[in-house]
């Protein structure tokens, strides 16, 4: 959580120095909604908690500009995402890719819930219900005596 705090701290000073210059150099972007969509699929590589869309860091603004530039040149959303993965590694993706080893990230919890549910069901049902009749019934008046005991303690 303090990752966010670091990211909140760093840009304030940097932005003073680099902000105006960088903004002046921002190239024209393609459809902002599409850029936001792509940026939302990517993570700020420095802070571990912001998407590229929300990150206030100047470098993230530059990356958003880069996305815009690529899309303005006609690259598809998925191609831009793939290019970013090549440049910065799979850690730049917001969530584990659904391919390769990372697929395990998605499958394992689902498997665990399924297994746990199944296992619990099977073991719970495995017990024969006939055993319950073997137990002696509580003596008559027992319930009332316990209630009276409890009420007496109440005073």
């Amino acid at each position: 959580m303090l990752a966010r705090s670091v990211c909140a701290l760093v840009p304030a000073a940097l932005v003073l120095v680099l902000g105006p210059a960088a903004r002046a150099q921002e190239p024209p972007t393609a459809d902002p909604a599409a850029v936001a969509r792509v940026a939302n699929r990517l993570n700020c590589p420095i802070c571990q908690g912001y998407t590229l869309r929300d990150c206030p860091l100047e470098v993230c603004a530059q990356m958003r500009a880069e996305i815009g530039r690529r899309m303005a040149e006609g690259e598809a959303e998925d191609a831009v995402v793939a290019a970013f993965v090549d440049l910065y590694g799979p850690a730049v993706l917001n969530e584990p890719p659904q391919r390769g080893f990372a697929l395990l990230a998605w499958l394992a919890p689902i498997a665990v819930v399924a297994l746990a549910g199944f296992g619990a069901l099977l073991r719970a049902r495995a017990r024969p219900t006939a055993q319950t009749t073997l137990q002696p019934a509580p003596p008559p008046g027992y319930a009332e005596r316990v209630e009276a005991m409890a009420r007496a303690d109440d005073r």
Partner: protein
Amino acid sequence: MIDRAALAAPPPRRAFERAALAAVLVAVGGLLYALSQGVRVGSGALVPGAPAPSVQTVTYDGQPLDLSELRGRVVVLNFFASWCIECVPEASVLEAVWRDYRDRGVVVVGLAYTDTEPAARAFAKANGMTFPIGPDLGGRPSRAYGLKGVPETAVIDTGGRLVPLALADGRVVAKLVGPIAEGGPFTPEDLRRTLDQLLAAEAAGDPERDGGG
């Protein structure tokens, strides 16, 4: 408080329990192994004198850059970023070293960490950097060097090993964390001295002896 009904449990459950125990032990063992590796990696695996982790990227001019192909030259590997304030004065230091030492077999390489090409190029232009710069491709070089931020610098000798860098407080590190600056733990003079010693050792024909220290 033994439950008599439990003792009459049917035998097949014992096998199931054994299998469950085995599974649990395997899972726990795997977890502990993973955590132990994490601890090992986290504590910083860069050791002075050890082989330098490999670096593979493509410079912004389109030239492929591979650390292993630079064997036989001394490499000053610098991680910087266009958004990094402390990198600005350091850039001139590195540029001066590049100008003075490139004919003596030293290569200065800059890797732009978490940066975009336009910004990195603009930064290089603004600060007069003419040595090869390229992206931290795939994030792998920075991870291999255990980067915690920028700037950080390592020196690699002709044999591809990390050169021990002696800091002002007496510590010897494999990688400098922070800028090469006046008044800092590692000054530009320290860098030049380290390079001079390395080159002298090479000239003396002793490939086993690392410089510095």
